[in-house]
């Protein structure tokens, strides 16, 4: 049984799969890239596609420049005749949230959640400017690295970090990724030149293509499908103002509030998978989640988004990686975080727990 039960139904992540994350996948269409991961995650549960109660995906057409690309990837699910299905133009972590709500309503007992990003056909730094306010920001084309660099400078000015500490976060992440066969960047990665100072190449995530998928299940179904389900004992997402000049970029009140609502602070965690594409953003998230340097919590043991950052999938991967550690007994209580928007504008926090051994 989950330690805490604040919701109508107990829902768990029962399986997780991801692709290898690669700089380019030119030889594959999006559905060809997604399909093997869908098969892998279903095989882990023994479920067939037709036995899934609800399917929800997250992706963005802007990444590969293909209109309605998510309808093409649905071919890989076996969506005809029509299944109960939905899509979010967001990271798959929010697709997972929608699926979790669907199960809470009682309309489904199982859900397949997947997300993918194929950034290689375009220029993702420029593409991401199109998510910004179209009146005041988008006409200036401030790219994702530039906005993160403004946040990093604010943190340095506030005495919260310095460039050496940021380099250490990047190095720790890529060292951890040595044990992650799916990672795109691992081991000794040079800090590199400034991209937009104070951020160097090493402080930025790799650009690449990748896929992630999880299966959710409720109650006894979860116990049947998984030896040690990763119960979602809390999940919440919160957003801040869009204007960067309205926010304190050195803090993340939306992350903190989501964590409170998810019950994070009610008990300690042993694992944190944080969606911090830039080294400086880990500093902000640690502060918001109360994760001090040097304490016992394993932060991003997968290497995090600094090791692989398939846009639209990297947040779902955090939930999947945290759940996988519970599945294999490496964690008893973990926090997973996903972000969306510039400078950690919107944040989702999930608390995952395994049954006592």
């Amino acid at each position: 049984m989950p330690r805490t039960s604040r919701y109508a139904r107990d829902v768990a992540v029962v399986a997780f799969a991801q692709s290898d994350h690669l700089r380019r996948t030119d030889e594959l269409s999006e559905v060809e890239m997604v399909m093997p991961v869908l098969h892998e995650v279903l095989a882990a549960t023994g479920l067939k596609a037709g036995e899934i109660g609800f399917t929800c995906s997250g992706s963005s057409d802007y990444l590969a420049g293909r209109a309605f690309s998510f309808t093409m990837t649905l071919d890989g699910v076996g969506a005809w005749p029509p299944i109960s299905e939905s899509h979010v133009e967001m990271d798959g972590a929010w697709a997972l949230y929608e699926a979790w709500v669907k199960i809470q309503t009682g309309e489904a007992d199982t859900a397949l959640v997947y997300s993918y990003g194929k950034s290689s056909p375009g220029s993702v730094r420029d593409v991401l400017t199109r998510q910004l306010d179209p009146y005041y920001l988008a006409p200036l084309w401030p790219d994702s690295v530039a906005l993160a660099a403004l946040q990093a400078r604010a943190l340095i000015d506030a005495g919260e970090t310095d460039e050496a500490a940021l380099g250490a976060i990047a190095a720790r992440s890529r060292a951890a990724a040595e044990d992650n066969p799916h990672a795109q960047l691992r081991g000794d990665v040079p800090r590199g030149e400034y991209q937009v100072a104070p951020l160097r190449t090493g402080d930025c995530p790799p650009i690449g293509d990748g896929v992630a998928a999880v299966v959710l299940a409720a109650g006894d179904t979860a116990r049947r499908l998984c030896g040690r389900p990763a119960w979602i004992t809390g999940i919440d997402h919160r957003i801040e103002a869009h204007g960067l000049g309205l926010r304190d970029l050195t803090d993340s009140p939306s992350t903190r509030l989501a964590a409170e609502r998810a019950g994070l602070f009610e008990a300690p965690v042993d694992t944190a998978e944080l969606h911090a594409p830039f080294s400086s953003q880990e500093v902000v998230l640690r502060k918001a989640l109360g994760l001090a340097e040097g304490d016992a919590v394993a932060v991003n043991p997968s290497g995090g988004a600094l090791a692989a950052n398939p846009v639209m999938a990297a947040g779902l991967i955090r939930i999947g990686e945290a759940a996988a550690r519970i599945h294999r007994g490496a964690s008893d209580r973990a926090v997973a975080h996903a972000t969306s928007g510039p400078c950690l504008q919107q944040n989702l926090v999930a608390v995952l727990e395994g049954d006592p051994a």
Partner: protein
Amino acid sequence: MTAAPPPQVLRAPLVVEFPFTRSLGPVQSAFLTGLRERVVLGVRTGDGRVMVPPVEYDPVTAEEIRELVEVAPAGTVTTWAWNGDPRPQQPLATPFAWVLVRLDGADTAILHALDAPGPDAVRTGMRVRIRWAADRTGAITDITCFEPEENGGDGGDGGAATPHDGAFADPVTGIVAEARLDYTYSPGRAQTAYINALAERRTVGERCPSCHKVYVPPRGACPTCGVATTDRVEVGPAGTVTTYCIVNIKARNLDIEVPYVYAHIALDGADLALHGRIGGIPYDQVRMGLRVEPVWTDGGRYPDHYRPTGEPDADYDAYKELI
């Protein structure tokens, strides 16, 4: 996924342009019209703070806010980042600093570029002022960038916000938000095989290993079974019109006389109809069941159109599942 792409990946440039026309509403209209007149406006939020640039709803309470104020065209850098390698559509072509600037009289900061000789000339707290564009239309780009204020020093606050009615002659009520993104398109495994076969004037679909349906053009997966389509199957060349429409409006950039017929065509051996133009027959004589074959033109990478084969029409039962 395989790590190394096979040698013959097809690539083509793909340009996506989306010039959205956006209306502004009263607050953003006043702000952008103000920029055209070299006046910077903010809006007072519910808790009395002055927000620049202004929006129509309070960021905390979501209440409608309309009380406009004028602030100074100079202010203080609150954070910055040095952009040594500007990207094509950014405000300045030479290296510059991205800055958040709190204008005098404002409580929030505005994002823009700062023209400075190098990162050593920029610091948080420095004084900057707006450099106005020569041609101003009522857009955020009416501000070319910020520039360091002469004898500026650090900090300081040159004044308070003053009330403003937001009224200007000939207000700007909308903007056209231009955007262009450039991609390099690759079609993937199944469609690459399809395109390569077309180059040899053959139409090759793929069969689902589970339900045995043949998809033309292949998309790589069977939407019924959710598995990869694997076996390549040459279909056609002839096929049957399953349904059609008569096009009466001339398309831009298309040199085809109207009216003409556009049809769904089930090629022999295919379990999915593709579409193409029907020629070689008056438009009002095209019918369901008509047997057609492709017509290739020199250098064409796909059939230019389909024309009647002269065979008897197909029986309805033979294609009714493909409509």
